[in-house]
């Protein structure tokens, strides 16, 4: 019988083992545990969980199938709303979405919706023999820019409707941020590959090494016969703090650090891409990207990893499970701390000393929380005379990104907001007819699931637009 008050624990690799390897940390429920967890669901008539899901998966419906031990049935319910359940089950911040609305959660622990979703998706991937049934093509070409979560979702939805979809990817591999950003230990690359292969089987065409805005422009895509374009090019240039010392060798943006490790596999001996390993590492920021960078640094062999965050634990924007895992792995959080300067090694006696120009530490100031800002978050304020120095070898800046200028600068008439995000209407269409946009290219850095939601919206918008155009 299921325990009503407590959810089933997620089996994980022990912190000691996982801190030294890139194997996935959360091992996933087995069948029995998944059924047991599903049986905790009250199947309440209002199903508030569904409203907490950015792509409105029929959560009550798929859990009901699980209660009936019909795993493939559950998969079918999920895949009506989500093309990438194996990914969402792993990286969604469920505690602030579906699970935060769970009726059971008022008194007890909410149903572990994400963990059941992941089980269903993994079971399907491992056991389903059902071939993807090819759809009759409608002969209309749609171009999708970017193979991240938003682009893949939009591609899947449009391919199901019969559109001839081509996805253009600037990098040499597919997956966007799922590949270069999120580390192997949180989202195995084989899972991403499984999802893209599924789309390929559905007839989606993928073109790597094509930078839209450079190799081809949006105008040229229309000239090539594409009837609509979806811009899902993701977030762009990494932000830096603008403090002295950020140019020193050993200062990375989180994007660069993670890309070297995840996309270029710098952690493997056989790969040519270099990365700074070992020593003392500080990651500045408190989001998922900061957690990923810190835990990656640890696995690369750092002797000590700090997270420097200017607010307190309560304001941490990262997914709860990742913060817990990071703490278990021995990462030290310095809350209410903010860097003021990165200190460099400088041997004045020997200007040719090879260490000159490398990081040797960071000056940090302590903070306290003041009045709430416009978003309701309490504003951090510096405490005078509280500066101190830390010894460090590497500093990783994980403080967000600014929109990428490539597509905007080569697409006349494309309207962007003051912050540089592409402006869209309620159907996802930009200021140019037939050009839709979504994901981080519109909102700035956000979550995988919200990017997927935008991809779904744009797929509907493109379908409406092209159906009406007939």
């Amino acid at each position, binding site marked *: 019988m299921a325990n009503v008050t407590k959810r089933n624990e997620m089996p994980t690799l022990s912190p000691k083992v996982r801190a030294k390897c890139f194997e996935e940390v959360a091992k996933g429920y087995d069948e029995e545990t998944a059924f047991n967890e599903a049986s905790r669901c009250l199947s309440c008539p209002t199903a508030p969980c569904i409203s907490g899901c950015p792509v409105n998966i029929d959560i009550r419906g798929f859990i009901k199938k699980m209660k009936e031990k019909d795993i493939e049935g559950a998969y079918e319910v999920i895949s009506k709303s989500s093309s990438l359940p194996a990914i969402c089950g792993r990286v969604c911040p469920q505690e602030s979405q579906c699970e935060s609305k769970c009726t059971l959660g008022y008194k007890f622990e909410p149903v572990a919706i994400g963990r059941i979703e992941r089980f269903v998706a993994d079971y399907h991937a491992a056991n389903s023999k059902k071939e993807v049934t090819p759809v009759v093509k409608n002969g209309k070409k749609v171009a999708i820019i970017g193979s991240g979560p938003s682009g893949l979702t939009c591609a899947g939805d449009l391919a199901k409707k019969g559109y001839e979809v081509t996805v253009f990817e600037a990098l040499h591999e597919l997956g966007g941020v799922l590949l270069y950003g999120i580390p192997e230990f949180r989202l195995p690359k084989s899972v991403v590959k499984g999802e893209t292969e599924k789309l390929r089987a559905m007839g989606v065409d993928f073109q790597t090494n094509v930078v839209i805005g*450079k*190799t081809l422009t949006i105008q040229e895509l229309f000239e090539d016969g594409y009837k609509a374009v979806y811009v899902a090019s*993701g977030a762009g240039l*990494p932000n830096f703090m603008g403090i002295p010392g950020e140019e020193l060798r050993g200062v990375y943006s989180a994007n660069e650090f993670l890309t070297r490790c995840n*996309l270029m596999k710098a952690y493997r001996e056989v790969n040519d891409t270099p990365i700074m390993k070992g020593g003392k590492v500080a990651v500045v920021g408190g989001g998922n990207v900061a957690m990923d960078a810190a835990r990656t640094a640890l696995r690369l062999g750092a002797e000590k990893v700090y997270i420097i965050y200017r607010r307190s634990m309560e304001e941490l924007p990262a997914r709860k499970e990742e913060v817990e895992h990071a703490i278990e792995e021995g990462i030290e959080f310095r809350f209410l701390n903010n860097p003021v300067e990165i200190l460099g090694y400088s041997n004045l006696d020997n200007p040719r000393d090879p260490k000159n120009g490398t990081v040797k530490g960071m000056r940090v100031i302590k903070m306290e929380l003041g009045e709430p800002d416009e978003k309701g978050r309490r504003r951090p304020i510096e405490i005078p005379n509280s500066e101190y120095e830390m010894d460090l070898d590497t500093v990783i800046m994980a403080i967000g990104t600014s929109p990428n200028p490539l597509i905007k600068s080569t697409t006349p008439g494309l309207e962007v907001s003051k912050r540089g995000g592409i402006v869209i209407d309620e159907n996802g269409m930009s200021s140019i007819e037939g050009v839709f946009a979504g994901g981080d290219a519109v909102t700035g850095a956000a979550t995988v699931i919200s990017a997927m939601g935008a991809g779904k919206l744009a797929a509907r918008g493109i379908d409406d637009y092209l159906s009406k155009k007939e």
Partner: protein
Amino acid sequence: MYRIEKRDVLNETVTSLWVEAPLVARKGEAGQFIILRVDEEGERIPLTIAGTDREKGLVRIIFQVVGATTMKLNALKEGDFIHDFVGPLGKPSDLEGLKKVAVIGGGVGCAIALPVAKKLHDLGANVVSIVGFRNKDILILEDEFKEVSDKLIVTTDDGSYGEKGNVTIPLRKMLENGEKFDRIIAIGPLIMMKFVSLTAKEFNIPVVVSMNPIMIDGTGMCGGCRLTLCQDGRRVTKFACVDGPEFDGYEVDFDEAMSRNRMYMDFEKHAYEETCNLLRKGGEN
């Protein structure tokens, strides 16, 4: 996969490749670059476009063997394939309206300076080219420069060919003699671009330099290629991949750029030696 159509050895360590990449060839302009990955495990490296043949869909790259990746690239033959080849990236050189220009190339940087000189020549500008090398043995592209220049000066550090010394010596001489240029374009080692910029500044002639920092994606995502410009006393961070690769030579902080380029020096040396051994072993079999 991208096929190597033609391979020419320009000198002991510098090779020219014409690579089949029709989409890149269609758009590629002087000043822009590509990023390539030699094989499945390779790193991504940026190389400036040294020429295009739009009709045949070919892109020319010229590179010097300086590390493991360029050594692997140099081991490929005509008919072999490069795993990934993406571009054209960066902004093209803006050369419209220039009447008289000094194009200065240093070492393998001459490969990048050549298409700039060629485009200026095609636009009808008066082109004075100054190309510098360590010695006569590594001189490259002399005839090709001659074709597109109204005047060509070759310098070698040891005086084994042309004028003895570095490229700033004839440049300074010309400027002191009152010769005027609308712009000086310098492409080569950072130290050369730094001193050309300082010389040009003395005579108040605008100077543009082409930066070639460490890069991964080349599309404005990773931030590895950042450099600092000093604009009106303020230090501004720019990204060579999307804001460049060409910048105002007066503004670039060259010392910082030189330091940043040394980021992986130890790693590169080690990788270079390993690849040397590997290729040597491969050759014996």
